[in-house]
């Protein structure tokens, strides 16, 4: 197994992302809720740099008890990685597309060692 040094702990803020690796094999490493997550920076749709986009929570249509549509809101507990090329959205914790879990970003393990963040591939 290979390891790639990402950066020092503290250099990556919560919500931030670092793109590391070589052309054709770039990995996005992000810190979310205290957890380091790493995904191949290549979207399963058309190959876009999925890790370089916005983070935005799940949008919900709100239907009240009477069955009426009353508006929209964000589900802040379900943050998405949004691919900047066309907007495919993936659950940040799993890398799975929000509408089809078979469509997913390739996930890598991360380790923190002696103050450094590493991604294993």
């Amino acid at each position: 197994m290979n390891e790639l040094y990402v950066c020092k702990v503290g250099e990556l803020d919560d919500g931030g992302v670092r793109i590391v690796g070589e052309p054709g094999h770039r990995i996005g490493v992000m810190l979310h809720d205290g957890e380091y997550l790493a995904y191949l920076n290549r979207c399963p749709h058309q190959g876009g740099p999925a890790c370089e986009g916005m983070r935005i929570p799940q949008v919900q249509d709100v239907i009240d008890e009477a069955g009426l549509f009353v508006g929209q809101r964000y589900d802040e507990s379900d943050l998405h990685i949004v691919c900047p090329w066309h907007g495919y959205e993936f659950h940040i914790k799993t890398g799975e597309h929000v509408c089809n879990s078979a469509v997913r970003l390739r996930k890598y393990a991360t380790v923190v060692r002696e103050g450094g963040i590493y991604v294993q591939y």
Partner: protein
Amino acid sequence: MTATAGVFREPLRKSFDTEEHLGNAYQQALERNYEDFLIVDVDSHHYETEAFGEIARYIEDPVLRDEALYQGMARGGVTSVDGSYQEMTGRVTRYPLRRHEATPPTIHRDITLMRRWMDAMGVDMACMFPTPMLNIATCPRVEVEVALARAYNRWLCDNILSEEPRLTSMLYLPFNDPESCYRMVEEFGDRKGVIGFMVTATHYKSVQDNAFVKTYAALQERGLPLGFHAAYTWGDKSTALMNRFISVHALGFVWHNMVHMTNWLMNGMPERFPRLKTLWIESGLAWVPFLMQRLDNEFMMRSSDAPLLKRKPSDYMREMFYTSQPMEMVENKEALELTFKMMKAESQLLYSSDYPHWDMDLPSTIYDLPFLQEGQKRAILGGNAQDLFKLDPHFAPWKLERQKQRAMAARG
């Protein structure tokens, strides 16, 4: 082993670089050896809004010129008819960040930006269209549409098409004024880089109107194709019932072209203008088999309604040309393959990206299709366009360089 990071970048900053945004596209181009063949993108866009001051100065009427300079051409805000949220609240990052991209002062910014994305995708030549100006089709003041169309066409020919042989365009026809359409063909038909003319599909004019016959004859005479570029408008009575952009876009971009195609066929235009080639732009592909089946079925029962047709509507449709994007391709390989077959894609389909818009397609959407032979892929990606528009091929500089390197390597 532990490797050091090859690059270390912090995305989501405020600058924008097309080549970086499309870095993965360039990888695809290298992996697939796109230097081996010509790629022509038949529908791409620029944001003429950035050069609108220059364009407006081409308006001859001094009063309208001042008005245009004062008001500008940007889309309206959240409440306007076309103030859509196409950009998905910034999710498609090139929309909000594009304006931060730095370009050198010596070359027109639009040429630089076009070259950058074309090179990144492996596109050699592009047919370019404006973006907000497609919507002047729905401008209630016909004279404004005509003046802006002429100003844009002059500006484009003078500043862009004359300067870069990789760039071409099918020029905008102000379809609300048939006489002006004819004059546009006469005035610009021979300009460098003009490979045809284009009607925005949201025009509320019937294509079979006798008033357009002169224009069609002029196009046919010159061997210039007529394109129908799909669009949507929230001002249409049916789309006005919709509350989501996805709805108005998914249907609007197909619906308006279906209307024109149906009129074109039922009024026998392919028989009346047998040498006039038509190109149906940005409606995707799925509507083609639908309309073929629908019209054939009705035509067999009531051919008296379309007496100029000597064959089934689908036979004529198979002789027309189509651009590929946005290609419907979510878990439907079988349907897609049949669609390609029904429309005779190997000779009638032309690759288009629609870059930089939100639903753009890369050349790999065609190149990676498992049911196409290499020759068919190359035809769709460039050969068909080269034939239809009689293009003199101009390759991207990096492709020429790579061809050279490979030839040298082969010689040892």
